[in-house]
């Protein structure tokens, strides 16, 4: 089974985004929430690209993922839990994966830095958390994020820069 390429993903995201948005809006009745659900569905499609058959059409699977995400959002809304968008994978649930090197001391420091970043990330605004997680944790390119968010690459770059600045400021505030 061949893994989905970036070009294939970009094509699917561009083609399916409008229909997914309509479906999400129908289920959630809130444009902002629907946009977050679509974004999360597409990010998950990318995250699980290795397990998907590229010979089969992506739209039925994408619709199922979106429906499940919308149901999660609705359940959270019933329980009056705050909406956290892509951060429905909250930073606390992100696991730290530091590649082991020959130097255990360096690995430990890297792990500590990752932990500090995870804590600071949780304090950022949802859009900043989302863009940083999409780019660094999920490994999406600037172009892919632009397709998912229906934005220009320049706007995504600008947002990433601001999010990094905010993250650095948060780390410095917590560790003066």
């Amino acid at each position: 089974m061949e893994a989905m390429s970036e070009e294939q993903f970009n094509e699917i995201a561009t083609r399916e985004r409008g229909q997914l948005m309509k479906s999400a809006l129908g289920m959630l009745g809130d444009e902002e929430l629907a946009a977050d659900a679509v974004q999360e569905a597409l990010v998950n499609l990318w995250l699980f690209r290795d397990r998907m058959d590229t010979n089969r059409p992506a739209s039925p699977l994408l619709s199922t993922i979106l429906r499940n995400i919308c149901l999660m959002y609705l359940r959270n809304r019933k329980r009056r839990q705050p909406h956290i968008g892509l951060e429905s994978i909250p930073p606390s649930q992100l696991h730290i994966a530091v590649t082991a090197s020959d130097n255990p001391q360096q690995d430990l420091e890297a792990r500590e830095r990752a932990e500090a970043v995870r804590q600071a990330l949780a304090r950022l605004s949802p859009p900043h958390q989302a863009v940083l997680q999409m780019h660094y944790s999920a490994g999406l390119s600037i172009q892919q994020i632009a397709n998912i968010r229906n934005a220009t690459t320049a706007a995504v770059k600008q947002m990433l820069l601001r999010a990094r600045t905010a993250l650095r400021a948060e780390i410095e505030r917590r560790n003066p």
Partner: protein
Amino acid sequence: MKQTSFTEDQLTDALRALKADTSDERFRLLTSEPPKARIRPLLWYGVAASVAMLIVAASIWQSSWSIHPDTTPTATTATVDENLSQLVGQSIAAQTQAQQQRTLTNDIVSEHLSLVEP
């Protein structure tokens, strides 16, 4: 350790070290068909089928009346039968009366002729 001493590369590495949950469990959770979604289309199909049947029944009913445009939908079979037998009765009565009149006329003419003839 002072986190404020992060270089840009270290910050990038730290961010990349934070991995999203890509476990099999989460994959199943996201890609399994939700139970509600399985039931809901069936409900909609049921409603759509009922509406379609109603439309077909209504169109058949309407077309059956349009074949007999002079017949009002309020007329029942019993009323039609009653009217028909009444008309037949009237027709027979009229025929009998006409026959009696003809016989009477013939009798008068015959009597008149017998008087005229020597």
